């Protein structure tokens, strides 16, 4: 990558795997469990977090030298809240049905630990460009897990992907349903999201044993 130095590139690539916000830092679990029953919701949530974290990291980084450290959490909260309200209103205006599905979870991006975590750990100590890359990288790391979980939950739970039936029609008994296959209702329940994330963590740490904590 000619555009980015090696260190800058790492800011984006590290959170994708070896420093993933969900599976390694264990941040932002709640939304990963709550909205991943459908792939579409996972993708929209990822984009929302991408926007909030990317822009938020830059804003906080720009203000980092003028924020009194005693009230920095409140300042950060105001930044997130502003961005989240923008996202929420945009969704309501242009994708009303989807914003219904996501319900309170868009608003709850404010409390998504990834965002506060990155503000605290990175944006307060680094310049805007690096903070921007860090925000993008972590959002992508979050998005990767959300999309994997959403993919499997929607595929196995409803037999669809992005709302399009891919396994046949369960009522007309076409496709794989003709062989007696049935959708797994358990995949649509929140416990199965937790188990799916658990399996991802398991696979990841088996492949890279450096990540295993004692």
């Amino acid at each position, binding site marked *: 990558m000619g555009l980015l130095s090696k260190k800058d590139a790492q800011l984006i690539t590290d959170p994708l795997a070896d420093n993933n916000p969900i599976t390694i830092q264990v941040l932002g679990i709640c939304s990963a469990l709550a909205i991943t029953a459908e792939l579409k919701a996972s993708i929209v949530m990822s984009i929302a977090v991408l926007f909030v974290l990317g822009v938020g990291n830059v804003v906080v980084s720009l203000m980092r030298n003028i924020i009194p450290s005693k009230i920095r959490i409140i300042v950060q909260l105001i930044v997130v809240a502003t961005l989240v309200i923008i996202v929420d209103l945009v969704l309501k205006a242009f994708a009303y049905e989807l914003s219904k599905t996501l319900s309170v979870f868009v608003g709850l991006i404010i409390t998504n630990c990834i965002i506060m975590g990155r503000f605290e750990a990175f944006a307060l100590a680094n310049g805007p460009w690096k903070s921007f890359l860090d925000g993008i990288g972590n959002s992508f790391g979050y998005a990767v897990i959300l999309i994997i979980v959403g993919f499997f939950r929607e595929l196995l739970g409803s037999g669809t992907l992005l709302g399009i039936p891919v396994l046949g029609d369960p009522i007309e008994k076409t496709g794989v349903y003709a062989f*007696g*296959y049935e959708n797994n*209702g*358990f*995949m649509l329940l929140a416990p199965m999201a937790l188990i799916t994330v658990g399996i991802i963590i398991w696979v990841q740490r088996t492949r890279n044993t450096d990540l295993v904590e004692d």
Partner: protein
Amino acid sequence: MALKDKLHDLKMKYAGTKMSPVFNAFHTFLYAPNETTHSGSHIRGADDLKRTMNTVIMALVPCLIFGMFNAGYQHHLATGEINSVTGGFFSAEFWSSSNFWVGFAKVLPLVIVSYVVGLAVEMFFAAKNGHEVEEGYLVTGMLVPLIVPIDIPLWMLSVAVIFGVVLGKEVFGGTGMNILNPALLIRAFLFFAYPTWMSGDKVWVHGAVERTNEIAAGSNADAISGETLLGYYAKFGQELKYKAADGITEITTTYGDRANELYSIWDMFYGFIPGSVGETSTLLILIGALFLIFSKIGSWRIMLSAALGALAMGLIFNFVVDSGWITESSKFYGLMSTTYWHHLIIGGFAFGAVYMATDPVTASQTNKGKWIYGFLIGFISILIRVFNPAYPEGVMLAILLMNVFAPTIDHYVVQGNVKRRMKRLKAKTA
């Protein structure tokens, strides 16, 4: 060359390779290994893990055989080919070879699938992690076919077994390390993943689902019903509520009478009722329980306290009904008004309390802890049974819940003991 030598040769050939646990497992399963420990002190004990597991399987065999007869009996009864039993436990209507073969043909595939899939997973992990195949799955593999509906599709069973063994046992480190009972986890998975196959009034009798489909397709067949007593109580409660909402308040029959029209107390006790394959016969479960208690494999404390817990909850509910705090229009009335001790002989309570709750790995380890653990299992089972008609079998969820709490109970029992002894020591030295 005898089979034993061949197996031994194979074992030697693969010794030290990835596949060695698989050959070791086959060898020790069929024959007593002739290797002995060469150094150090060792005690010769007859009750190793294999013996323990085999004892439980022996205790399960009566339930399995009975389940085969009962599957055929319920099927033939539902299709109207035979009449219901008349002559007590040894009725000729029940113990007929035609009943047995229908049940045998349905139950045997369940047993085979359960063992093949489960042991394949165990062997895979043993070969991968380089440890020996443990005997833990022998009992789980026998329990699983006994606690599922007879017509469950085999691929669903396979998926559930893989899920249960991998996430219930292997991720925690294999046999002896699991927090939850794997057999119950498998059932719980089926229950939440494929609810249409695990509850309702059609899944418990072989052929009932197809029969319903035929009727729906316009074929000329009589409708059959194979609902369990629990399902019956739960559903009837809802019908009553519906009627009360319609302004019909006159209710002429009580639940007890209606249940007696279906099955007598002795039918329930002997197990001539629809249900999961092995859970229906309280009589044979009691015999199995005695066997487990006298061979000192199962804990009588857990079994007894679970029964006491269920009776206590049943008495509380009966008291609520007798005091008139709940009316017949309530959807809980049906199961609440069931005579308290009937809870022990309907549904899977007896089976769960005897074979599942006593699993030595997931139960409490201390004696006092076992009393608390068992009592709460009984108590919560009946609570779930009554208050959640959508999940009529509460014992599964109750045992899984208490499995999670067993270590906590043990912790407080041990700490309590330590504190008491500290006090005694202080009193002595002061």
